[in-house]
């Protein structure tokens, strides 16, 4: 038996009023098969099956989950199933009225994304005038006594505003701040050159975070992780393939991570046809990179014996940088392809962004 999952990531819809150029959604979000979204009953069944499997945390995300008209019903279903629910939203549709309905339905926690603490920058990066609505949403969440997380994806164009972002977090009364350095999946891939930060920016930001933590203490939990491309050893993607989380796409495809649909030959099982328990324990997609038997060199004889710690790193990154999803993640300094990571962080020069869109066929 594989370990039990603790998290279900429910991507309710890939539709979103924002156009962030680092969105983790797949590049083909505009394709027909993703528009065929699951019905309310499918999700409610999934929540109950998830709890029976051991899931405790539910992330209601997207795209923009607030675009689902049955969101209140889904929150009530999550509560009835015994799951702790988090709404991961851009905030533009999180009005006081809808927030009250979600609160009554049992929603536990609200996470609001901010693209930059500066209104103009926020709207430019989001490709949408959204800053004022986000701030109003954050205040509505706190007035209703929701625990509030502010999330900001960091990159070259906003890292220098980290102090403003920390101040804003305090002002909004958030108890968590997720500083998510851009991961190069989904829409961040065609924008990698334009988003990659410099070492200096990262170092200054890290110092700011450190000062803030000392000043504010445990009142605000600040999550800060150095981006993969500046590491010499890989991170265990999703805590290990098929070991902690399940991701359900809007059409019911179930995968071990948000980016796994890019792996050729990986056929996701669908929620409409199979139970979550079957998908977790039996499906090819979840078993493909479980454990350590699938590993190649240099992982197989890792000189640091870190197979169980790093889990070979990220499969999607291995695919993209080494051309093989079963290779060692090239972030690892022992990977024969590590030079590509070094080259990427040393060569970020362009400022041109490719905006997220649901129009067909983006260029990859």
């Amino acid at each position, binding site marked *: 038996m594989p370990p*039990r999952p*603790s998290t279900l990531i429910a991507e309710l819809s890939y539709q979103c009023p924002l156009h962030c150029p680092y969105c983790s959604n797949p590049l083909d979000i505009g394709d027909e098969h993703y528009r065929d979204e699951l019905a309310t009953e499918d999700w409610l069944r999934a929540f109950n099956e998830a*709890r*029976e*499997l*051991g899931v*405790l*945390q539910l*992330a209601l995300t997207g795209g923009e989950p607030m675009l689902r008209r049955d969101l209140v019903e889904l929150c009530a279903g999550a509560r009835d199933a*015994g799951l*702790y629910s*988090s709404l991961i939203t851009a905030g533009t549709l999180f009005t006081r009225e809808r927030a009250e309905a979600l609160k009554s339905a049992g929603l*536990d*926690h609200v*996470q609001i994304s901010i693209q930059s603490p500066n209104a103009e920058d926020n709207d430019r990066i989001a490709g949408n005038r959204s800053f004022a609505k986000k701030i109003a949403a954050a205040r509505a969440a706190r007035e209703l*006594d*929701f*625990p509030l*997380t502010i999330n900001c994806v960091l990159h070259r164009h906003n890292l220098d505003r980290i102090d403003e972002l920390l101040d804003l977090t305090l002002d909004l009364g958030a*108890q*968590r701040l997720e500083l998510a350095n851009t991961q190069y999946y989904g829409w961040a891939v065609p924008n990698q050159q334009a988003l990659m930060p410099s070492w200096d920016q990262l170092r200054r930001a890290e110092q700011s975070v450190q000062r803030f933590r000392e000043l504010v203490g*445990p*009142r605000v*939990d600040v999550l800060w992780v150095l981006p993969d491309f500046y590491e010499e050893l890989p991170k265990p993607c999703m805590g290990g393939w098929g070991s902690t989380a399940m991701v359900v796409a809007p059409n019911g495809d179930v995968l071990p991570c948000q980016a796994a649909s890019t792996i050729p030959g990986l056929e996701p099982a669908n929620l409409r046809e199979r139970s979550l328990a079957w998908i977790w324990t039996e499906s090819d997609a979840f078993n493909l990179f479980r454990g350590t038997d699938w590993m190649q060199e240099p992982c197989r004889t890792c000189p640091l014996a870190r197979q169980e710690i790093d889990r070979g790193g990220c499969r999607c990154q291995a695919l993209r940088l080494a051309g093989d999803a079963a290779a060692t993640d090239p972030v690892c300094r022992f990977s024969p392809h590590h030079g590509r990571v070094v080259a990427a962080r040393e060569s970020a020069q362009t400022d041109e962004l490719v905006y997220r869109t649901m129009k067909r066929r983006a260029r990859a």
Partner: protein
Amino acid sequence: MTRPRLVTGARLRYDEVREEHVLLIPEGVVRLNPTAAQVLELCDGERSLDDIAGTLSVRYDGADVRDDVHELIDAMAQRGLVVDAA
């Protein structure tokens, strides 16, 4: 710490699947041993630390649990999971 309570959004529950007590927090799970779960159940923002220790002491045949209760609540407060309601 005068009158401890769980931080906003934290929820205690028993996980029937793994048969253990857990504290659910935004995007996280803290596994608890049965004693810690009992202490946190009493952190309601009304009781003082001495009230909590007293209530538990009765359950454990009058044993002096004050130091253990203080230690646990201090550790939880340092992680931001318990705050002062006072």
